[in-house]
C-alpha cells in the first residue's frame, strides 16, 4: 500500500512537471516574439488642413518644459474650443527609456515629444510622416526650414516624394556655457572667451582665484553635453552628423574625438569641475550655480529662465568657443518637437495643434519660457542672458553649426555616454577605451 501511494505521488509530480513543460512548448508557435508584418494603417497624414468638427481630445506626452507646454495648451484651447489637449508629463530619462514601449502600445498618445528612438519608430511606421502638412500649412514660411530638416529621420516621404517630416518644433535648444559675472570679475575674467584655448586659460584663472571653475551635472546628462560641446569644436561637423545618423562606415574612434575626450580628463585632473560633478543632476548643478557655487556652468538654454529669474543681469552665456577666433560656432542643440502617433484617430486635430506651434502667438509663449522660438522674428527682443543665447543661436544657425546630441546615435547610447563621461571626469578610463565602447554600441545598432 505504501509503495503504491508513493508511486501515485511520483506520477502526479511527473504529470505536473509535464504540464508545466508542455503547455509553454505547445504555445511556442504563438509565442515567437514579434511580428514580421508591418504596422497597419496609414504612414502619413492627409494633406488637408480641415479643422475637425465635434469635440476631440488629443493626448500629448512630453518630457521637457512643462510650464511652457501648459501655457501653449491653454492658448491653443482658447483658440480651438473643440479640441482638448491632455498633457502627460514624464521626466526625460523616464520618457526616453519608455518611448519605444509607449509608442508601440495600443494606448500610444496622439502626440509625443520627439526624442531618441523616434528614428526607429519612424522607420517602423509608428509615427506619421507629416510632409503633406508641411506643404498644406506652409510651414516652410513660418519656421526656418533648417529646423524642420532636423526631423526627417533621414528618410524621404512616400506621400510627397520630398523629404519626410516626423515632428514639428516648438522651442529650439542649444547647449553652452553660463558664467557668473561677479565671480568671473573676481577671477580677472572680463569678457567671454573667443577661442577654446582662451576658455582654458579662464578656467585656470578661476582655479587660481580659489573658485570652482566649471559646474557640471554629470549624474544625468550634464557631462555628455560638455563632451559634445568639446567634440563639436574639434571634429568636422559632417563627420559628426554621419555618425549620429548611423551612416555606414562612420566612426567615433578618430583623433578629434580622442582629443576632446583627453581634454575632459585633463580638466578633471586640474580640478576644474565642481567636486561632486558625478553625483549632481543637471537641475541641481543649475541651482548651485545660481547660488554662486562656480564661475562657469555647462547647460542648455532650458536653464536660462530659471537662472535669469534668480541671478538677473549677473549671468551671461556663450556657446563653447572654437579652436580659432574665426572658427564657426558649433553647438549641440535640438528642438523640443512633437511627433504624431500612427494610431491616432485625429490626425487633422493633431495637425491643427502642430500648426499652432508655428504661430507668432506660440512663439511668444516659447520665448517667455526660455526657449528659442523656431521663428525668432515673430517675437520681441529678449534681454539679458536670453539675449546672449539668442545671439549665440543665431550665429550657430548662420554657420550651419547646430548639431544634434550624440545620444541620438542609438537607443543605448545615452547610457554609454553618461557612464563613460562620468569615468572620464573621474579619470577612470582612457579616451581610447571610452570611444571604443561608444563605437561598439554604435555598431551593435547600425552594423559595421
Amino acid at each position: 500500500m505504501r509503495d503504491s501511494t508513493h508511486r501515485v505521488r511520483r506520477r502526479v509530480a511527473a504529470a505536473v512537471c509535464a504540464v508545466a513543460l508542455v503547455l509553454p512548448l505547445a504555445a511556442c508557435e504563438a509565442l515567437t516574439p514579434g511580428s514580421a508584418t508591418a504596422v497597419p494603417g496609414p504612414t502619413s497624414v492627409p494633406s488637408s488642413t480641415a479643422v475637425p468638427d465635434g469635440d476631440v481630445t488629443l493626448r500629448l506626452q512630453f518630457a521637457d518644459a512643462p510650464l511652457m507646454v501648459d501655457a501653449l495648451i491653454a492658448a491653443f484651447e482658447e483658440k480651438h474650443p473643440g479640441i482638448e489637449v491632455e498633457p502627460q508629463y514624464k521626466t526625460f530619462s523616464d520618457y526616453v527609456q519608455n518611448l519605444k514601449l509607449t509608442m508601440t502600445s495600443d494606448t500610444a498618445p496622439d502626440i509625443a515629444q520627439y526624442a531618441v528612438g523616434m528614428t526607429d519608430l519612424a522607420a517602423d511606421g509608428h509615427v506619421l510622416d507629416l510632409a503633406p502638412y508641411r506643404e498644406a500649412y506652409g510651414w516652410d514660411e513660418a519656421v526656418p526650414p533648417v529646423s524642420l530638416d532636423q526631423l526627417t529621420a533621414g528618410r524621404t516621404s512616400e506621400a510627397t516624394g520630398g523629404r519626410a517630416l516626423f515632428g514639428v518644433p516648438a522651442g529650439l535648444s542649444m547647449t553652452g556655457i553660463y558664467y557668473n559675472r561677479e565671480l568671473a570679475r573676481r577671477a580677472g575674467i572680463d569678457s567671454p572667451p573667443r577661442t577654446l584655448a582662451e576658455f582654458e586659460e579662464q578656467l585656470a584663472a578661476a582655479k587660481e582665484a580659489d573658485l570652482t571653475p566649471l559646474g557640471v551635472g554629470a549624474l544625468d546628462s550634464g557631462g555628455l553635453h560638455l563632451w559634445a560641446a568639446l567634440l563639436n569644436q574639434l571634429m568636422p561637423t559632417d563627420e559628426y552628423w554621419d555618425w549620429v545618423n548611423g551612416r555606414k562606415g562612420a566612426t567615433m574612434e578618430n583623433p578629434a574625438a580622442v582629443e576632446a575626450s583627453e581634454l575632459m580628463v585633463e580638466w578633471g585632473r586640474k580640478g576644474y569641475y565642481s567636486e561632486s560633478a558625478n553625483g549632481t543632476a543637471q537641475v541641481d548643478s543649475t541651482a548651485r550655480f545660481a547660488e554662486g557655487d562656480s564661475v562657469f556652468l555647462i547647460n542648455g538654454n532650458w536653464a536660462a529662465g530659471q537662472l535669469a529669474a534668480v541671478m538677473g543681469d549677473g549671468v551671461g552665456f556663450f556657446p563653447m568657443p572654437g579652436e580659432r577666433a574665426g572658427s564657426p560656432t558649433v553647438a549641440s542643440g535640438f528642438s523640443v518637437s512633437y511627433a504624431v502617433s500612427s494610431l491616432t484617430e485625429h490626425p487633422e486635430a493633431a495637425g491643427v495643434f502642430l500648426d499652432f506651434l508655428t504661430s507668432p502667438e506660440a512663439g511668444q509663449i516659447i520665448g517667455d519660457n526660455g526657449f528659442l522660438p523656431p521663428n525668432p522674428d515673430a517675437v520681441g527682443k529678449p534681454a539679458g542672458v536670453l539675449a546672449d543665447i539668442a545671439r549665440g543661436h543665431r550665429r550657430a544657425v548662420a554657420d550651419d553649426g547646430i548639431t544634434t546630441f550624440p545620444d541620438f546615435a542609438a537607443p543605448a547610447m545615452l547610457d554609454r555616454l553618461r557612464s563613460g563621461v562620468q569615468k572620464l571626469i573621474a579619470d577612470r578610463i582612457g579616451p581610447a577605451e571610452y570611444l571604443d565602447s561608444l563605437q561598439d554600441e554604435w555598431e551593435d545598432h547600425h552594423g559595421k
Partner: protein
Amino acid sequence: MGSSPPVPGRQAADRRVRGRRARGRSPWRGYVYVLPAFAVYFAFAVLPALHTAYLSLFEWDGVTLGDWVGLGNYAEILQDPVLRRSVFNALVLVVFFSFVPIVLGLLSTGLLARYRRPGMGAYRFLFMLPQVVPLVAVGVTWRWLYGDDGVVNQVFRAVGLDGVTRAWLGDFGAALIAVGLVGTWVLSGLCMMLFLSGVQKVDPSLYEAARIDGAGPIREFVSVTLPHLRGELAVAMTVTTVAALASFDIVYVTTNGGPGEQTTVPGLLVYRLAFSEGKVGLAAALAVVLGCLILGIVYLINRLSRSQT
C-alpha cells in the same frame, strides 16, 4: 498518463480504487480548492518565467520578428564587461545586504541572549520600521542623506572631518558601498529581531549548565546560542541574499547605476535592455541568469542548514 497500468500492477491498482471508494470520495476532489490559486500563479508567474527563458534564446527588439540565436545571449553576458560587472556588483551588495546585517544581528543577540530583555517592544518597532516602507521612499531619502548637504556630510563636518565630505553617490570609490549601506540599514533590524526571537526558544538551563562548566560569553555563544539559531540564520541569509541580488528600486532612484558602472545591478540592466535599448532577448537571458543565481543560492543555503541538523 491515462493508460491503464500494466498487468502485474493490476492488483495493486484494484486495491487502490477500492480504498478510494471506501473513503467515499475521490482524493482528487480537494484539488478544486487548489485550482484557482494554481491557475493564477501558473498563468501570471510560472508561465512568464518560462516565457523569459524562451525569449532569452532570441535576438529581439521587441517589435519586429525575432532571430533565433540559441545560447548566444548567454555568451554575450559572459563577454560583455558591463553585464559581467552588474553581476559582480550584485555579489558585492550581498556583503552589505546579508553579511553585515547578520553579523550585527548575531552580535546584539550574543550580548543579550542570556537576559530578560525589558523594553524590547520599542526596539522591535523601530527596527522593523525600514522593513515596511517602500524601498523607493527609502532610496529617495538616502539620495538626499548622501548628497552634498545631507546628514552624512553634516555628521562628518560636525566631527571635523571636512576633508572626507563629498557627494557619496557620485564617488567612484564610495557609491557601491553607499548603496550597500542602505541595504544594511533596511535589513539589519530584521536580522536582529529574527535572532532575538529565535533565542527566546533556548532553554535557560542550557546557559546555566554552560556557565557551571565555566564557559565564557564567547564559548557560550558558540556552543549554546548559535546552534539554536541555525534555522533563523538560514532564513536571514535567504531573505537578505535575495534582496541583494534582486535589488532594483534603491539603485534606480539613487544612482541609476552610476557613476560609470559602479552601481549597475542586473535588475537595472534587465529593465534598460528590454525597455529602452531594444535588446529583449539579452534582457531575458540576464533575468534567467539572475533567477538561477537566486535559486541556486537559496537551494544551497537550505541544503547546508538542513544537512547540519
